[in-house]
């Protein structure tokens, strides 16, 4: 049991289970909400667009967290699942003229259905070997889009995605889209957090810790593994659809193979097994990628190297070195620091 601040006692079960337990919690949470929804008014387009990209990444990252962090079903196909959701929504809006807000849940469900098909391999596969079916899923997705459904997806030419419209209001600038993405991120994040406190979530954790023991305890592990795939990919699909309708055009090159590795990699950097881990992972990934762009040109001006190209190399080198540094410093992820911080705050005067 995690520590409570001094003088806070749970007298009801509902108090014990609540996410927001104390007044401070509530104030902080409401303050955060107010900040989240007023800050954009003062941000410039660049930061807003970064916020949107981080938000969509974060939604997909919640999915990775549920699959990898909670259930330990290692997925190296997440970019494919994200793309699947994006394509479902793009096809529905483009060909059938659906409203984006009806297509969005279907994008999630479509990706979840694809995830279920891939997830059947969990019947026998486990651990690192889960890389095989999930990584294959990514390439099968490419094939489906570029060859099988070419008539509708226009193959490699890409497909247009209209900006979302809500009762006559079009989300076609960064500010309004930021609110949309922020709201969705909050909903999915709270949903994921809550899922982990239900029977289903506890079953996921039991499977992660020891799936044989979980089975002995009467958990239908195949069912819950499939459920984990479905839920994780639902998040991926939502994230993908939001991202697709932000850029208003997608083709398969938007979902490169490397992204599948990045999703898991930055989950580990962020911290496995907590929703905050996914949040930190997404923030770290996108901010690092952006920060590197500012530092590399400086290095190019200074380093006297004529043989190679300093800018092109320094982007990669800084990116990898900073990540390696973080991993060596804290293999349990940034979320672990967050936990330590919270713990020391609660025990404030006596934080030993």
């Amino acid at each position, binding site marked *: 049991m995690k520590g409570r601040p001094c003088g806070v006692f749970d007298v009801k079960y509902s108090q014990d289970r609540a996410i927001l337990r104390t007044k401070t919690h509530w104030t902080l949470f409401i303050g955060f909400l107010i900040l989240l929804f007023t800050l954009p008014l003062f941000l*410039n*387009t*660049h930061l*807003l*667009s*970064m916020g949107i*990209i981080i938000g969509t*990444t974060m939604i997909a990252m919640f999915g990775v967290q549920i699959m990898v962090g909670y259930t330990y079903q290692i997925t190296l196909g997440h970019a494919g699942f994200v793309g699947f959701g994006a394509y479902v929504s793009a096809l529905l809006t483009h060909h059938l003229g659906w409203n984006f807000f009806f297509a969005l849940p279907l994008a999630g469900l479509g990706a979840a259905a694809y995830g279920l098909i891939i997830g059947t391999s969990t019947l026998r596969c486990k651990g690192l070997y889960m890389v095989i079916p999930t990584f294959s899923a990514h390439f099968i997705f490419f094939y489906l889009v*570029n*060859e099988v459904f070419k008539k509708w997806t226009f*193959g*490699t*030419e*890409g497909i*247009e995605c209209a900006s979302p419209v809500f009762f006559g209001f079009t989300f076609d600038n*960064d500010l309004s889209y930021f609110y949309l993405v922020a709201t969705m991120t909050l909903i999915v994040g709270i949903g994921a957090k809550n899922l982990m406190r239900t029977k289903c979530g506890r079953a996921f954790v039991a499977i992660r810790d020891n799936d044989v023991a979980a089975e002995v305890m009467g958990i239908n592990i195949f069912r819950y593994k499939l459920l984990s795939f479905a839920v994780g990919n639902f998040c991926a699909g939502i994230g993908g659809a939001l991202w697709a309708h932000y*850029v*208003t*055009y997608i*083709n398969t*090159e*938007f979902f*490169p193979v*490397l*992204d599948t590795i990045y999703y898991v990699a930055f989950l580990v950097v962020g911290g496995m097994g907590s929703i905050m881990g996914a949040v930190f992972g997404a923030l770290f990934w*996108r901010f690092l*990628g*952006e920060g590197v*762009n500012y*530092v*590399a040109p*400086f*290095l190019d*001006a*200074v380093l006297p190297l*004529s043989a190679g*190209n300093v*800018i*092109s*190399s320094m*982007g*990669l080198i800084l990116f990898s070195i900073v990540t390696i540094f973080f991993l060596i*410093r804290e293999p349990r992820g940034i979320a672990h620091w967050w936990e330590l911080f919270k713990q020391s705050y609660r025990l404030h005067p006596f934080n030993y």
Partner: protein
Amino acid sequence: MKNNIIRSVLSVFIFILCAFTVACTPKEETTKPAVIHYGIVDLTGAYGTLVPDLWEGMLDYYKLVNEEGGIDGYPVKLIWGETGNMMARTWSHYKRYKRAGAQLLWLASSPDGEALKRTLVKDEIFCPLNYGQSDPQIYPPAWIYIDGPSYGDGFAAFLRMAKEQWDKEGKKGTMKVGIIGPDTAYGRAALEPGQRFGKKIGVDVIGQEYTPVIPIDLTPQVLRLKNKGADWIWLQGLSQIATVFMKNMHSLGLQGKIPVAGFWWVSGADMLRRIGPDFSEGYIFDSYNYMPQVEKDHPGVKKCNEMRLKYHQKEANEVYVRGVRAAQFVMELARRTLGKYGHEGLTAKNYMGMMDTFKDWKTPWDLGAPFHITPNDRRTAKKLLFYQVKDGNLVRYSDWVDIPHIYPENMSHLFENNL
């Protein structure tokens, strides 16, 4: 102990960064405001083997212009960002530049151009040249111009040249041309326009064989092309595909029997660097800029060499020349716009308006095909040269060839002359 090490490493790192920031703070004392251009480029991703040299040529020319006093006294600045071929990063750069008030944006890959096409129109930002020349970017015309002809046109020019040769040699039957390339937007670029043009001039384009992006062995694809009876093979891929393909042609004993041609991104120079003279013998490719390996005595190429030796102690290669050529064009565009509208008038619309004033304009160093722009036509060059690898050297294969204009049927009302 461990903490101390990390702390010291970190502090040194931060110190170095601060030092760099101080050292790099620009100390400009110019009277005239700068002309600012923006660019988005992939230097570390899939295009990392070609684009860095090209970008170096561009940056060097920007540097040279500034050293020589700028454009009519206005210093010129290029702000750019690197993407690693990742859309998310392209997008964040784009938003940053848009916020900074970008009017003129360089692009360097087809996927970026295709993805940004509609947004550029909406945000009124002008892309004078994109180094990725895929057809969907320019049909229907938008605010993107491409450097040289499009991939489809390059292939069509080759078809026209090959057909002329075929007729000259008095061979009978229809000529059959097969394509080989990866299954991406870039690899498919030649197929559909080529088939359309082939029908018009009586060449049978027998379809495309697809390759993995990083192949090891392409024997099946070669055999299928051979069985289909291809008289020519067109390579629509990056050089790692071309190298393996040429090796397989060699090992199957088909080299020289079925001639192979490719386009400017898979130049013979690149092939010679990668696999040497034996395998690349007979390879034909087109280019809209001069190959410095061939035109050694050309004064413009010599100037490129001098410039690169000055800044980087290296000789110029063909991609570098291509970058310089494009940069010279955009400088001239900026000069003309400045002359007509002044510094406040450097807007995307004015830039684009000035594009049509280029008629058969050769760059100051004359590095390749002249810039000739007609209304609605987003291609900046209308001529191509063909080169060939012969006995381990590059030689000219043909003189300037006029490029046919291949556009989708339903857009014919937009363009002046047919073909």
